């Protein structure tokens, strides 16, 4: 770089640019926090859903699955699993419950987590809640 562009100019761009865009980001975040309640399905956030999220986290479900596209890519997307399973929490409960302890020879299989009925119902309720968040029409189709 030529001498016209000095180190102190570069430094000023760094400080000025960083501060400006950090403040812009905070402003956008402020606006976002105001907009989120219109889309986040918080009406459905019952104590049962909160428990379900806890069960989801305590068993590290995100280590295999994606949820709204984030997580691991080893197992199906679950942001819309409630809809994929025919709008049925029972189907979700049945699936988790029926996983074989020793897995399936040669194939990927979900572990048997030995969840209680309360936990099973809760995690299904959590996935129903997640499926009703307005995620800008994502995923593109029911297969996730």
């Amino acid at each position, binding site marked *: 770089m030529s001498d016209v562009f000095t180190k102190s100019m570069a430094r000023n761009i760094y400080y000025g640019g960083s501060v400006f865009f950090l403040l812009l980001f905070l402003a956008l975040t402020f606006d976002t926090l105001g907009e989120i309640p219109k889309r986040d399905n918080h009406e459905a956030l019952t104590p049962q859903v909160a428990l379900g999220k806890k069960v989801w986290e305590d068993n590290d479900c995100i280590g295999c699955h994606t949820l709204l596209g984030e997580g691991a890519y080893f197992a199906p997307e679950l942001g819309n699993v409630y809809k994929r399973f025919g709008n049925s929490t029972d189907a979700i409960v049945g699936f988790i419950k029926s996983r074989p302890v020793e897995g399936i020879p040669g194939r990927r299989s979900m572990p048997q987590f030995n969840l209680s009925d309360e936990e099973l119902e809760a995690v299904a309720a959590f996935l129903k809640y997640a499926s009703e968040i307005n995620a800008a029409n994502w*995923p593109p189709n029911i297969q996730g």
Partner: protein
Amino acid sequence: MKYSSQAVAKPYFIAAIGLFIGQILFGVILGLQYVIGDFLFPEIPFNVARMVHTNLLIVWLLFGFMGASYYLVPEEAERELHSPMLAWVLFWVFLVAGALTILGYLLVPYAQLAELTMNDLLPTMGREFLEQPTITKIGIVIVALGFLFNVGMTILGGRKTVVNLVLLTGLTGLAVFFLFAFYVPDNLVLDKYFWWWVVHLWVEGVWELILGAILAFVLIKTTGVDREVIEKWLYVIIAMTLITGIIGTGHHFFWIGTPEYWQWWGSIFSAMEPIPFFMMTVFAFNMVNRRRRDHPNKVAVLWALGTAVMAFLGAGVWGFLHTLAPINYYTHGTQITAAHGHMAFYGAYVMIVLTIISYAMPILRGQEAADPRAQVVEMWSFWLMTVSMVFITLFLTAAGVLQVWMQRYTEMPESFMVVQEKIEIFYWLRELAGVVFLLGLIVYVVSFFVKGGEREMASDVVADTA
């Protein structure tokens, strides 16, 4: 070595390499589980192996960053480290805490680990990359604060170079943004929104400052180019990093229940995120071409050029590939993401840590540079690891394109598991490339033990060009 306290960097580098080996072993296990679904099941399920793989990566990179800081901060500040003792204490605290956490993942089911570590008191477990028990997270904060204090005191009491100040800014940002790991609201949208404040603002924000500072330091030392020139470049690069990268966080806010204007903000700003990486490539090659001395440590220069190129490809090009909202709509959460993640982490962060290790380790062992024979072996490891990572990325990209096509972008979308079986061949190829990577890593470790004619470093050989 100009200051005896720099020696404390050595255990950090050794620990980093040790954990790197563990990370890659689990990577190979994961790759195999992709094609032999019941491999090690139910003893080590995929999610556990993945936690070990990603957490080891983060921990060894942090060891690398800390080692780099302990090495370069005293040299830049022209004084001894504030407290080598504190650095040693924190080393053992971090290593033991890290090892116990990994053992916890492997020895007990995750839900039981949550119980054992009393996660319910302050639940923070079970989120991607932040799976550590709350007690470990608190430990990380304590280690980070102690480390920042030690490095900060050294910098403030010595010569304040741009390299040191940028490094300190990056490290402080690292510690500050980690605090969002403790915010886990029940509301999934808010949870995801602020989770990215750790993950994105780390790897596409403040970590790039650390990367830039380490790269600048190694280039100053190995090329002898005027510090003023290098510092100007560093400022411009990190300015572009933060100008594009902060709002670029928006590319994670497309489909998680956040307002749709983020599709514009995120697309436009993250489309510019390759710019600082491109500048970094131009910068590194420019400095090496304009070098005023031929440093005997050729392999360190190779790593420095390599990280500049691979960070641009992995973070820049492979990031851009799927960052525009209309494209990301189809690629979000597929093997495309995995492809990008692998090459970006390797190119930007693995390689910068290996750069500073390559530069500093011979000096810490009493030589200006490793014996030429050892350097040749290390260069072999450079090419084996780098080329195999390129192939890992290409195979995962192929898998991802097919996955997007069959599962998302078609009239008759097929189910996830059906598609996974159809693209299996690419997972096999990826695993093969992964094994080559492991071989490269073994060669890397071997390079430290290659004996040649010992060339003791005369204290006046390392001319300080600063």
